């Protein structure tokens, strides 16, 4: 590789870096997401109490800003006397795990289907488009609730069910981006030189659709987190005593009229995480493919 080539790559890398750091949404989103990831990773160190330890003598202590609160339990305690701050911290692990897990499974399914449909076209495309239509016709919440109710709610089940349901947007976007790339001259060149299909897919197509893949992955991650919270809230997601944020809202619901902070705190945490992930996703799309903004 000539020096000139190296220089241009260095320049683009630097400009991409400044484009990212100059984008307000990405920076705010990334800051919140990284903070929550760090909190989730170091939960055992950061949590002041055991999130599962019940103590009926210290039930429903309000947070520290309330006149009845104390620094012993910064965010108070729930109806079983468990420290709310510690549960919130451990809850971040569940939300992130659901987000990553579901996006990984659905991303894998959707990308394989979308890239195949876009690259091969014809019958393959017809089948994939048909499957996407079928999937979109089925109500996600209803199907997820029904399956979780039958199979039984556990973290693994919720991740798999969401992963198997949320691949539609991956498939749609990967299909259209592959269609675009497929008509490029360099793909025709690779075919003319006699590259294998596998090689063309891996070295010509994939690197050029990966930006879109990242954008959809972040948005679907947020989608999965919100859905898990809704499922757990309805009692058919992650089961107690796990500190899922949706479950915490559901457990606090009966007392929300007297102790509104029981639902405010986990709700705000959920809102912030989803907002931050969406800001990152929207920002990455603005930077890498401004033409896809809508």
């Amino acid at each position: 590789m000539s020096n000139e080539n190296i220089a241009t790559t260095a320049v683009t890398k630097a400009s991409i870096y400044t484009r990212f750091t100059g984008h307000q949404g990405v920076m705010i989103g990334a800051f919140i997401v990284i903070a929550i990831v760090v909190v989730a990773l170091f939960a055992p160190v950061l949590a002041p109490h055991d999130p599962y330890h019940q103590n009926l003598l210290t039930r429903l202590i309000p947070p520290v800003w309330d006149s009845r609160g104390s620094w012993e339990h910064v965010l108070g305690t729930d109806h079983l006397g468990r420290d709310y701050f510690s549960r919130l911290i451990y809850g971040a692990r569940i939300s992130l795990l659901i987000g990553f897990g579901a996006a990984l499974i659905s991303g894998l399914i959707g990308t394989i289907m979308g890239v195949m449909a876009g690259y091969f076209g014809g019958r393959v495309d017809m089948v994939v488009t048909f499957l996407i239509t079928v999937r979109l016709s089925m109500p996600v919440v209803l199907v997820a609730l029904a399956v979780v109710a039958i199979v039984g709610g556990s973290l693994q089940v919720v991740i798999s069910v969401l992963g198997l349901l949320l691949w539609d947007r991956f498939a749609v976007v990967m299909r259209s981006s592959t269609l675009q790339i497929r008509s490029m001259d360099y793909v025709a060149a690779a075919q003319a030189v006699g590259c294998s299909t596998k090689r063309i897919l891996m070295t010509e197509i994939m690197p050029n659709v990966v930006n879109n893949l990242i954008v959809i992955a972040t948005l679907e991650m947020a989608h999965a987190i919100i859905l898990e919270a809704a499922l757990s809230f309805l009692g058919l997601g992650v089961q107690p005593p796990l500190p899922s944020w949706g479950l915490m809202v559901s457990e606090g619901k009966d007392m929300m009229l007297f102790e509104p902070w029981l639902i405010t705190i986990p709700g705000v945490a959920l809102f912030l995480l989803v907002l931050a992930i969406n800001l990152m996703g929207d920002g990455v799309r603005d930077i890498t493919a401004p033409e896809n903004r809508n």
Partner: protein
Amino acid sequence: MLYYTLKRLALAALVALTVSFISFGLLYLSSDPAIAMAGETASDADIEAIRQLYGFDRPILVQYFDWLQRAAAGDLGKSYYFRTDVSALIGERLPTTMTLGVCAITFAILLSVPLGVAAAIRPNSIIDRIALFLSVMGQALPSFWFALMLIVFLSVSLRLLPTSGSDTWLHFVMPTVVLGYYAAPAIMRLTRTGMLEVLSTDYIRTARAKGLRPPVVLFKHALRNAIIPVVSLAAVQFGFMLGGSIVVETIFALHGAGFLAWESITRNDLPTVQGLILVFSLFYIVLTFFADLINAWLDPRIRIK
């Protein structure tokens, strides 16, 4: 147009058939209805008797075609819990959900289309910023939590609205806002991009150049063209809303189909759950079918492709 309609109809029928098979298989493969029906105290012989009585011992395909045949005639079986016909049960609950859905989509359109148009007229203005802010917020706000917050503020603190039930129109205000707010961001964004695109075309410049008043240019020339994709998106969002109604109806105790779905799932009432999945899916399929037809009618390029 006729050819396109027929082609689209065949696709819709095929999708409906596949969805019915999946929803049937999903629930029958993952559970044993005989055990659920017999109850916890039943002996093995009882379960076996029920299995033979209802034909659960037959191959799945035979059971599926049997079910499909009766479903096509409007018979979705009997609810395990209510002991009545599932189709009658759903028919009884559906009007509430439809009312809620129509209110919510109207609210969403009334909120998002004017906002999207205003944002497109002056990009990067304060209105555009506010619209973007609202849409980013709307996407991150969990609907169940938003609903609870509304209850705490509007019903309990201010005592403005009733919290649960479906007796008067006041009972529909909060569910409408929660469900509609969820669909608004997507419609707003699409209206905004559509308007931006149309406003930069030559015919708008011509319209302006020949001295038409700005409102005429904006609404007669621009919005009419920009609204075409919004129509189909609104139809799709309306279909998704039925699914979203499960959460909203459960919280506000609105006795609609969504609440019925949640009740039936927690009670292991399989025929009702199956019937609801089928009805919700069919509704979505019919909606998108008509949306596609309207689109093809408005935009001839679609039906030629």
